């Protein structure tokens, strides 16, 4: 019986593993890719057309591994120095529902890559493109825009705010459904 259980365990693990998201642990892209322009406004003369989506967006958005990598990079690249742990400081808050330059992962990626005129530096020549996508995915999670099954969980550090997988969607915060 015990032997049977012992056999079953690796089998179960293997099955579960089949369900896991894909992890690209060796991002190969260097600087300079993903130069797709992203509009920072929803106002378009002649009517709004669907904004172009980057083919990388889907593979990074809501991906647990990439978001946890993004969380690590968020402090390693000193994002936290200006945006704190999402509440803001020198830079604006990232956990609220206010987005100066768009809330889509493509917009956030473009903001990191190109910078913005009122103080956001351009990191396009400093951070590999895939890592910028990971950062963008994590910033989405800070605003509660990631599934709780994938968003990072509590820190090992001082409690600074509820863990990302418990943060409510900022857009509906305090509003009745």
């Amino acid at each position: 019986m015990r032997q049977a259980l012992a056999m079953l365990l690796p089998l179960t693990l293997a099955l579960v593993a089949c369900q896991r998201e894909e992890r690209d642990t060796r991002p190969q892209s260097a600087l300079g890719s993903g130069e797709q322009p992203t509009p920072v406004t929803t106002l378009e003369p002649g009517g709004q057309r669907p904004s172009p989506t980057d083919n990388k967006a889907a593979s990074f958005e809501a991906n647990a591994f990439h978001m946890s990598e993004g969380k690590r990079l968020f402090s390693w690249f000193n994002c936290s120095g200006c945006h704190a742990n999402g509440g803001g400081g020198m830079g604006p808050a990232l956990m609220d529902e206010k987005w100066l330059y768009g809330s889509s992962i493509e917009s956030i990626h473009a903001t990191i890559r190109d910078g913005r005129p009122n103080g956001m530096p351009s990191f396009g020549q400093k951070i590999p493109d895939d890592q910028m996508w990971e950062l963008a995915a994590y910033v989405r999670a800070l605003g509660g825009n990631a599934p709780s099954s994938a968003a990072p969980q509590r820190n090992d550090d001082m409690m600074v705010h509820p863990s990302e997988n418990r943060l409510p969607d900022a857009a509906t915060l305090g509003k009745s459904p």
Partner: protein
Amino acid sequence: MKGTLHPAPAGVDAAQGARALAIWNSFRTCIFSVMLLACGPFLSGASEPPSAAAIAPPATAAPPDDGQWTMPAKNYASTRFSELTEINEGNVKNLQVAFTFSTGVNKGQEAAPLVVGNIMYIVTPFPNIIYALDLSRPGAPMKWKYEPNPEPAAQGVACCDVVNRGAAFADGRIFFNTLDGHTIALDANTGKPIWNAHIGNINIGETITMAPLVVKGKVLVGNSGGEMGVRGWVKALDAGDGHVVWTAYGTGPDKDVLIGPDFKPHYDMDKGTDLGVTTWPPEAWKIGGGNMWGWISYDPDLNLIFHGTGNPGPWNPDLRPGDNKWTSGIFARDADTGAAKWFYQWSPHDLHDYDGINEQILLDMTWQGKPRKVLVRPERNGYLYILDRTTGEVLSATAYGPVNSSKGVDLKTGRLIANPDKRTGTGKVVRDICPTASGLKDWQPSAFSPKTGLLYIPHNNLCMDEEGVEVNYIAGTPYVGMNVRMIPGPGGNRGAFTAWDVAAAKPAWVLKENFPVWSGTVVTAGDVAFYGTMEGWFKAVSARTGDLLWQFKTSSGIIGQPITYRGPDGHQYVAILSGVGGWAGAIVSGDLDPRDATAALGFVNAMKDLKNATTAGGTLYVFRLP
């Protein structure tokens, strides 16, 4: 307000407050016993009946009042004392608005207005617009304005709101600094630019927020950036054409710091060669802070300027073992050459972001029976220091509020006695450290009245939890390495306005305020002291008793510096810029999210309710008697 405890604000953890109180109580005993031991010989001297009249600024640094206000500190002694008496204890209750003026900028208004002749000058936060208002005409219409158009990107490297602390007037010119690192001289009459010196580089995180001081034809300016790994400096610019006459760095080799044969520090800890290099890990001094963004005083008799130095970077002390000279200290320098005369370090190897850049008030007083030329400094680390300004010797250092991050100052060695229980470091959460990174008092300048012998100190009452974290140096980005969350200090009132008896080295009275008192203050010969609150109240209190005599609710929280002047009509006026912001008010001016305890370097956690108390908006208010 006096003597009443404010209820703990909504959203504040009562248990944390109680814990802080208990710790303060236990440490208070400790601090006092240490102070008694350390100050024993001096207390006997201080216990003699104080003679208020014996304390006064040197006449050359505080000339007779001409009714103008030509520099933020009023005079070189930095007394912020006006001899005007038309508005006094008896009639101040009748004050009414004379005129108002919108600055058009919704960021923190920390500047002091200037009044020269018939013109008032105000400088706004970024984009640093200068307005000249004609006081001789009804409603004080705009005479001219000057827009320097600083680079918008500078906003991204300004640590704690995009403030400006004021301009300075000398020889027919207005001098001021812009956030993106320019010092500009304007013709005071026409507003036409005379010169524009680009001395700071935002791409390494350098900004300028301080008010310049003009001494003997030189404009003294320092840089900000202690949270960005910026190496601090003070520069003297020629007032005529703006060229840099000398630069004195806050870290590095002696030749960069302008330390030469004239340098005679009082304490052994400050003696040696190239301490600005050897008290750091290799090369760390190049990104070590020691910035100068606060106040400078000048003694014409000694021909010395006095200025502090900011915190070492990064905040996480594990990354910079050593005393980290010449950060968190004070220099006396030759006013002509910048050569250092002496130095004293308030907080060697600073553990808690205790910048040493607060104002220093130059006074002459009798100390233990002998006349001494002193310098009074309410310091960020929580002690009110009295230094001999000729030598840098510490005569006394007394806590003026709750302090548990240290256990006093050793007057033999001059060294701050750090409390090992409150030592921060990587991966360690240390709780209930008082005062906070913003200090028992931050930049907000105090005022001294020679009539009462009291120093009026607007300050904070906050404590904090800190956790050191790893941090990478990336030029032009923050270099802090510390998670911080602040909480109200013992008693729950987050601010206080303390009248400090300089001779007796103890408070005469204390007014508690709900929010940190982030405004400056002015005191007059009419025995009235003015200050503002972050709710927006502009208050007049008795300089003798602290009784509230008058208050007016302005449109936004006040973090500016009040002034008083004699208008063209011969009557006395009081002016203040209203407009919340600064580090304490960043939650409002920067629209930060209070759900993150570490927002604005932890200050937001103590200010969660400020958004419900005030909104942003810059307005000048000027008051007079009917």
